[in-house]
């Protein structure tokens, strides 16, 4: 019986857990045997598979400290941190206000930094008794690999997540801390964030209507379709499993071949 893919005995924290990918990640981690703490900006939420829900503003340094302390007190360990909370900003460079730009970097980049820094000690301690150590999975994007018109703020933030991931991976390895850090790069996924992007594409005049936007984005994938949240969640689970014990600083690109051509 092989258990390279099982997460029994582990505790996970997922941020942005009420979004499409977040919900799928919570469920997939729970199905693999992990005890999952779901978090998001809402005061309360019901997330299938979660053991508990906690409100978390990922840009709030003190909130991170408090949440991690609570997890340590209540569960005694943290094995998996999924930095999934993120926002999209769809606007021309000319039309992007400084406030909008900074909000995007704050949620998408600072949130990942703050979470990593806050959780590292608990992840380090927990990783000493788990095969493959602890796992941090950071949600980047195909937009963290190549650019996109009207997505400069978003792509910049996702590119930052990619390199933060590699630096954290290199650093924890150099320190001999049992924490692996990898990034996931979804292509276009059917979620509310994607719906917002379509709507903004139409508002900014890039596409005449949402059907056209959807068709063009779908066709951008070699597979000719959008991805599903479960397909991203399966990658998150794999990176967090003992089987991925030699993977750190890697990019798991789940994009239907979009960036292959």
């Amino acid at each position, binding site marked *: *019986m*092989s*258990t*390279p*893919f*099982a997460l029994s005995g582990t505790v996970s924290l997922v941020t942005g857990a009420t979004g499409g990918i977040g919900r799928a990640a919570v469920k997939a981690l729970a199905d*693999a045997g992990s005890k999952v703490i779901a978090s998001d900006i809402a005061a309360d939420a019901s997330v299938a598979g979660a053991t508990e829900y906690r409100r978390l503003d990922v840009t709030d340094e003190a909130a991170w400290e408090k949440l991690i302390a609570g997890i340590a007190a209540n569960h005694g360990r943290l094995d998996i941190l999924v930095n999934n909370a993120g926002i999209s900003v769809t606007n021309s460079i000319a039309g992007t206000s400084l406030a909008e730009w900074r909000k995007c970097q704050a949620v998408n980049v600072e949130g990942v930094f703050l979470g990593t820094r806050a959780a590292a000690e608990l992840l380090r301690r927990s990783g000493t008794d788990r095969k493959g150590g602890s796992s941090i999975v950071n949600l980047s994007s195909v937009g963290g690999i190549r650019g996109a018109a009207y997505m400069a703020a978003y792509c910049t933030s996702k590119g930052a997540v990619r390199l933060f991931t*590699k*630096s954290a*991976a*290199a650093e924890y*390895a*150099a320190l*001999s801390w049992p924490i692996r850090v990898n990034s996931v790069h979804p*292509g276009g996924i059917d979620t509310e964030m994607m719906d917002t992007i379509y709507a903004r594409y139409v508002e900014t005049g890039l596409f005449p209507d949402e059907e056209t936007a959807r068709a063009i984005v779908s066709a951008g*994938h*070699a*597979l*000719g379709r959008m*991805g*599903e949240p479960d*397909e*991203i969640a*399966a*990658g998150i*689970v*794999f990176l967090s*499993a*003992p*089987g*991925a*014990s*030699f*993977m*750190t*600083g*890697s*990019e*798991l*690109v*789940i*994009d*239907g*071949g979009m*960036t*292959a*051509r």
Partner: protein
Amino acid sequence: MANKLTGKVALVTGGTNGIGEAAVRGLVAEGAKVAFTGNNQAAGGRISAETGALFVRHAVQDVEGWAKVSQAIRDNFGRLDIAFANAGINAGDSDIETVSVDAWRNIIDVNLTGSMLTCQNAIALMKDNPEGPGGSIIINSSINGILALAGDVTYSTTKGALRLLAKSTAVHCAKSRLNIRCNTIHPGVIETPLILGAIAGAPDPAAARAMLENVAPMGRLGRTEEIVALLVYLASDDAGFVTGAEMVIDGGSTAGLPGV
């Protein structure tokens, strides 16, 4: 949680030692039926007897011999779902100034042409699957297909070329709606008989081992079962949206700048 690949049929080239052998054993353990090829009849027979996998003696670059491999898969299994294009060598390689054209051509023949033939033949088999075309091809590249080795110019070049072979294959299969995915894996330094032999044969084995271990920031060699776990993920339906991608599995070797 075990048996992620029950009912699937897999082909592994270069399956008589190292990562290939581990793949044969690992795929069988996950419930797949496996056919594997290689040049070493004795090793192939032994692994076959131990695992139940089907061994076909074949050099991956032998064009005419592929017909026999494909027929054996058709006759024994009637389908193909997974192909692991793993066979590869670095024998006779050298740096750009000293490499011989014969060595260059031979390594290209095995590593690159052999992988191309694996993809071509695997797709032909996968297209004939009873419920319709479909499958997952994984090509074994290397971290040296991303970052170069000065002393192995041909190996580095072929491993780099495999990235684009995989992407072209992936995009073609996607455009043709074949439901066949193709990805590369990029192992770092993995503990295999080849590496252990290189360590043992070095003037200072302990120093050689330490040097190889420190290629990865994680400070150790990778294990073949770690490569197999990634292979199983890519082969499974969990990875249905993963195609044309490069999966690096290297203990952080390529994540950071050198020397820091």
